[in-house]
């Protein structure tokens, strides 16, 4: 359909003048610069060839001739593609235009083609009926050509699949029996299921002439799906034309439209589907927001990814906050190191479990990791349960606390045996166990069986019939290592080993990272669903960003309706829900144009029962060559000027660098004109500029995973607050920090509190006298409101008759113990059950009530080799007013394995001490320094030992396991031997 004609051919006679111009140009040489030069004779010997050009060089002349030719041709105004195409008269021109996604790439040409036909109709004064197949409403009533042109100009391609049958019916209805002249169908060339019906409907119109106009369809390509694999993201695509092998590159873009990674789609010849693999690190893949095919700007060639690909928000919770000076011993250290690269971590600030859980659940994490949390505060179970039901993933790690927790914990996947199982100890036949190969179900399926992991200690599951299928990883002897249970929409996963490296070396192996990564991938990205969502079933998500036909996200939502999201069903784009993102900035669902596994097939018109004339699109508009020619002439003029300047040495005076820069500047200046000239001559480009894309994006939407800073924790006074924010209580805080104080719990019973104060006073005096520690006056603390963190130890005389502390107060004590403090519970009841019944005393019962809600580690009576027994004095027992009650401390984990080891467990100080010996009673002195209460039996040596016990306890509190250091062993042994 290409043609070539001159608007004013007469001007071409001017070309006859070209030989004359040639002759004239040849005669004018560039003038040399004249110089007097006395040593000419010397110069003559070196300058052999005498250069006396009487004429310009031939190429310069040719350039000038070309320039003249270009100008003459430009004035003659050549036009490409004059068009001629007959329209059948006798009825209205009926045009059905596909403005579907596939038409976006060559939309301008389609409009051009339609416009030319409308122009022909206008010339023939035929009414025009114009229908677009991807519109919601059809107005197919024949109108004048002018109205049709306006509608054509206003029409835009839609990011939708055309609904041709509806359009054909609308045409039939609108024509109302009128027989159309020419029926032209501008198809996007892609088959749709209803094509046959449409053709039948059109045949029913019995047009005089039917034209099917199609583009080449070379760029009809659609991305149909993206799957996030372990190592890469694979992208499925389909295309329309399958004759030749084709290569496309697929870009993965982030939310700002920046390209992050690229894959290649390799279509083999004859194949209409292909898969690209985008290799990128997992962290990078989390940022993918959109995939688009390079060079094709259609909605089909863009695939939106929703937050199924997003980073997860993961909360970490530990039973033991430990201290920051020994990070490697923190239970959460390896977990956070493993998760950090691909998850947003939330770590609550306070040590109070209940408050932390509240804080965590407010931020609605995808998963919560609990490391060695045995028992949760009672009121925390319900919200955690709720969160689980809504789709949360709870990942738990075992540990001493979990092992000691009661077996009825509802938040473990399997029923656990109490206590842990040690492998490879001195009294055990079993060796430390390696891992068995991962089962072929569950998230770890496909991972290589790890060979470098040994487990020395684990918690055991009670065998149940379904234990096997709940086990995702097990040891070589078959005992489960990772078990799971689904809780409604959520899931609980338990690692039967601890999260630090004491029970196994799993946390320090590379498999740990991969296992955690796969587990986290299982969890729902948007966190647990909102509660109302769970109830209502199908929340309506408002349109947030919609895809334009050019494959750009825009905030223009137009007439799009909210999307009724159904859980587990991939939404399909429709007229009401065009492709785009639905939801809000916090979380959204992507609606893509094509369903997964769609393939594109060519439009098949052979089913039509009437003859169809096929044609291509107009080969571009009939455009004039004049601007291009003028631009070329202008360039040649510039070039000629530069050449002449150069030949005459015009650049000779410039310094060398300046010369190059000047030439470059002139060239750049010249080329700056070039695109403008070309643009006028060509079809205006519809390539979206990257900037435009970025603008259409939500402006730097914050990651949905960012946790809001918890407001609650801001309320408590921070002891580390800077001085300038001085508050009324600051002096007392500073005073408490300057001097170590012994503290006791005010029980509310006057005599108990008095003895406590006198007892601690006596101990303070004793320590001042005997040791370098000079404590301040004892402090009575109200555990419901006083800040506890100033005191290394709090003495708590348990009294059954005192009021029971509130749950909040106990929770604060729990937090205090968790953050490194120690509570010395004294039931003072060693001899209260003298009747021999062995029953628990009222004070003991009260202690059990108090501790019921606290996550305490397993306890043991102080072993002889415990640091407590030698932190200052060498002691065998710890008497108070009474003698005989053991002093209970946190059980050391490895004590039973390492029989000879003198070191105490871990590094921490036991958070809890329980005795029944009434320490305070033995320590109590009055103002004159006399003992207040007698010891039982009255023995001064026992009182002395009681004081020594107090000193040892204080030293142990303040120096930790310093005395357990192995370097002291020989000296201690020597002294013990005497």
């Amino acid at each position, binding site marked *: 359909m290409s043609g070539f004609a001159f608007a004013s051919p007469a001007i071409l006679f001017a070309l006859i003048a070209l030989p004359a111009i040639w002759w004239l140009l040849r005669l004018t040489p560039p003038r*040399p*610069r004249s110089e007097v*030069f006395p040593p*000419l004779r010397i110069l003559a*010997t*070196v300058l052999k060839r005498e*250069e006396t050009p009487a004429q310009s060089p031939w190429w310069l002349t040719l350039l000038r001739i070309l320039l003249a030719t270009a100008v003459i041709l430009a004035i003659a105004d050549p036009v490409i593609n004059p068009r001629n195409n007959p329209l059948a008269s006798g009825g209205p021109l009926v045009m059905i235009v596909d403005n579907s996604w596939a038409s976006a790439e060559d939309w301008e040409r389609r409009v051009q083609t339609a416009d030319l036909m409308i122009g022909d109709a206008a010339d023939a004064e035929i009414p025009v009926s114009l229908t677009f197949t991807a519109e919601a409403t059809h107005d197919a009533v024949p109108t004048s050509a002018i109205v049709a042109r306006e509608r054509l100009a206003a029409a835009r391609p839609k990011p939708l699949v055309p609904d041709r049958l509806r359009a054909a019916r609308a045409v039939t209805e609108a024509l109302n029996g009128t027989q159309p002249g020419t029926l032209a169908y501008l198809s996007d060339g892609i088959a749709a299921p209803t094509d046959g019906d449409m053709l039948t409907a059109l045949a029913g119109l019995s047009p005089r002439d039917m034209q099917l106009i199609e583009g080449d369809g070379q760029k009809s390509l659609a991305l149909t799906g993206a799957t996030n694999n372990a190592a890469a993201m694979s992208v499925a695509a389909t295309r329309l034309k399958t004759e030749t092998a084709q290569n496309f590159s697929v870009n993965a873009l982030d939310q700002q439209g920046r390209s992050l990674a690229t894959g290649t789609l390799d279509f083999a010849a004859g194949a209409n589907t292909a898969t690209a693999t985008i290799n990128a690190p997992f962290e990078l893949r989390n940022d993918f927001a959109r995939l688009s095919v390079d060079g094709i700007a259609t909605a089909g060639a863009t695939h939106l990814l929703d937050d199924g690909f997003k980073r997860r928000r993961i909360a970490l919770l530990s039973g033991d906050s430990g201290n920051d000076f020994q990070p490697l011993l923190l239970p959460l250290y390896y977990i956070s190191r493993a998760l950090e690269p691909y998850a947003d971590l939330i770590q609550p600030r306070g040590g109070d479990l209940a408050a932390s859980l509240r804080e965590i659940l407010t931020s609605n994490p995808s998963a919560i990791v609990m490391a060695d949390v045995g028992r949760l505060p009672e009121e925390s179970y319900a919200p955690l349960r709720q969160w689980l039901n809504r789709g949360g993933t709870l990942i738990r790690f075992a540990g001493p606390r979990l092992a000691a927790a009661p077996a009825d914990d509802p938040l473990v996947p399997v029923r656990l045996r109490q206590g842990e199982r040690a492998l490879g100890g001195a009294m055990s036949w079993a060796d430390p166990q390696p891992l068995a190969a991962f089962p072929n179900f569950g998230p770890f399926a496909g991972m290589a069986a790890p060979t470098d992991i040994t487990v020395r200690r684990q918690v055991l599951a009670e065998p149940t019939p379904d234990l096997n299928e709940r086990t995702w990883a097990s040891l070589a002897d078959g005992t489960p290592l990772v078990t799971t249970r689904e809780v409604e929409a959520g899931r609980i996963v338990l690692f039967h080993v601890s999260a630090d490296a004491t029970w196994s070396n799993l946390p320090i192996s590379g498999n740990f990272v991969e296992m955690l990564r796969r587990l986290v991938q299982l969890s729902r990205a948007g966190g647990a669903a909102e509660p109302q969502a769970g109830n209502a079933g199908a929340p309506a998500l408002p349109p947030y960003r919609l895809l334009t036909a050019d494959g750009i996200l825009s905030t223009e939502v137009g007439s799009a309706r909210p999307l009724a999201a159904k859980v587990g069903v991939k939404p399909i784009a429709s007229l009401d829900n065009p492709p785009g993102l639905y939801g809000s900035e916090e979380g959204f669902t992507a609606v893509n144009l094509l369903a997964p596994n769609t393939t594109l097939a060519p439009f098949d018109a052979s089913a039509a029962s009437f003859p169809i004339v096929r044609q291509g699109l107009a080969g571009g508009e009939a455009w004039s060559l004049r601007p291009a020619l003028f631009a070329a002439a202008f360039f040649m003029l510039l070039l000629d000027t530069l050449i002449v300047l150069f030949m*005459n040495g015009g650049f000779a005076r410039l310094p060398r660098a300046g010369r190059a820069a000047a030439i470059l500047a002139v060239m750049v200046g010249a080329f700056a004109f070039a695109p403008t000239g070309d643009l006028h001559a060509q079809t205006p480009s519809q390539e979206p500029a990257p900037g435009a894309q970025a603008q259409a994006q939500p402006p730097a939407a914050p990651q949905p995973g960012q946790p809001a800073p918890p407001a609650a924790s801001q309320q408590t006074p921070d002891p580390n607050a800077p001085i300038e924010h001085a508050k009324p209580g600051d002096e007392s805080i500073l005073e408490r920090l300057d001097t170590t104080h012994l503290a006791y719990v005010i029980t509310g019973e006057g005599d108990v509190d008095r003895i406590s104060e006198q007892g601690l006073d006596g101990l303070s005096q004793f320590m001042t006298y005997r040791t370098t520690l000079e404590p301040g006056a004892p402090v009575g603390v109200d555990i419901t409101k006083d800040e506890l963190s100033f005191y290394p130890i709090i003495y708590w005389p348990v009294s059954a008759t005192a009021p029971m502390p509130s749950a909040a107060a106990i929770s604060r004590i729990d937090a205090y113990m968790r953050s490194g403090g120690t509570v010395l519970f004294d039931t003072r009841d060693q001899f209260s059950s003298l009747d021999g019944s062995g029953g628990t005393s009222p004070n003991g019962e009260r202690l059990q009530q108090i501790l019921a809600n606290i996550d305490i580690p397993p306890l043991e009576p102080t072993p002889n080799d415990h640091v407590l027994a030698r932190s200052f004095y060498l002691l065998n027992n710890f008497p108070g007013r009474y003698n005989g009650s053991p002093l209970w401390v946190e059980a050391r984990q490895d004590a039973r394995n390492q029989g000879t080891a003198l070191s105490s467990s871990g590094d921490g100080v036991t958070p809890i001490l329980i005795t029944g010996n009434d320490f305070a009673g033995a320590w109590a002195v009055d103002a004159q320094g006399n003992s207040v209460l007698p010891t039982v039996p009255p023995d001064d040596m026992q009182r002395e030992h009681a004081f020594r016990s107090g000193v040892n306890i204080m030293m142990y509190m303040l120096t930790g396991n310093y005395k357990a250091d192995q370097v002291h062993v020989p000296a201690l042994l020597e002294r013990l031997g005497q």
Partner: protein
Amino acid sequence: MASIGEIVDQTPSAEILSRARQRAILVPDCMVEARRIANTVISGWHGRRKRGIGENFWQFRPYADGESLARIDWRRSARDDHTYIRDKEWEAAHTVWLWADMSPSMMYKSTYAAVSKESRALVLMLALAEVLARSGERIGCPGIMEPVSARNAAERLATALVHAPPSTGLPQTEMIRGASDIVLIGDFLDDADRIMQRVAPLARRGLRGHVIEVADPAEEIFPYSGRTEFTDPETGEKLTSGRAESVREIYRNAYLARRENLGQSLRRLGWSFIVHRTDHLASEALGAVHGYLSGNPPRIIPNTSTGVGA
């Protein structure tokens, strides 16, 4: 575009009168400058009671390596184991012939130099005349002025130059008699062989010669580029170079080779050869030639391309 070089004072032979007037205007300027330079040179002298060119014995001194064997006094040397040279005392009554080239090529001045070659040559000649006249030497100009011994010899030489007919090429030598010194100042752009053909007979007649080549910087560094047409001021011959910067290196090599060739030929005669560029101070060349005349060749040899060749 302004050209680099120009002919400052082109005087066709038909306009002798106007040229004489111009020269008369030029000469007083040269005189003043010559006096100033002469004073600076004189300040470095220590009177005439020193060795130099003359007849009388002044001293014996040990022979130093590099001196001419002809100067060894064999009679004195035979007395002991050392070799001696007999120095003569500077003798006043010595005739020095001064000559400057006045050909059209000397009128050339480029933008790199402040004065033309001819101007610099005249300045050098008159300054030498002034310096030598103060020392009581007899000064002459071959073909123009017979040797005179007068305090105002420089003025007289200038006057003679004003009235002299224009001459080209090397000087007429029939006036020169006996052993004397001759100082030739010019650009010596002719073929070295042709110059030597004229100079060699003079040397055979016993003249001691000193040749000062006055060159313009543009001739030496060849700062031309682009398409250039060169014109010879003497013959009017034209030569066009398409890209003058492309021959710069070859030209410079040829130019320096000619100079080297000439210098070697002259030195073989026992003459001294001094190169002087018009962008340098005239006193440099004056000091050098004075050193040669007084028998103290300059020890410190500046850059060969700019200063003095020994």
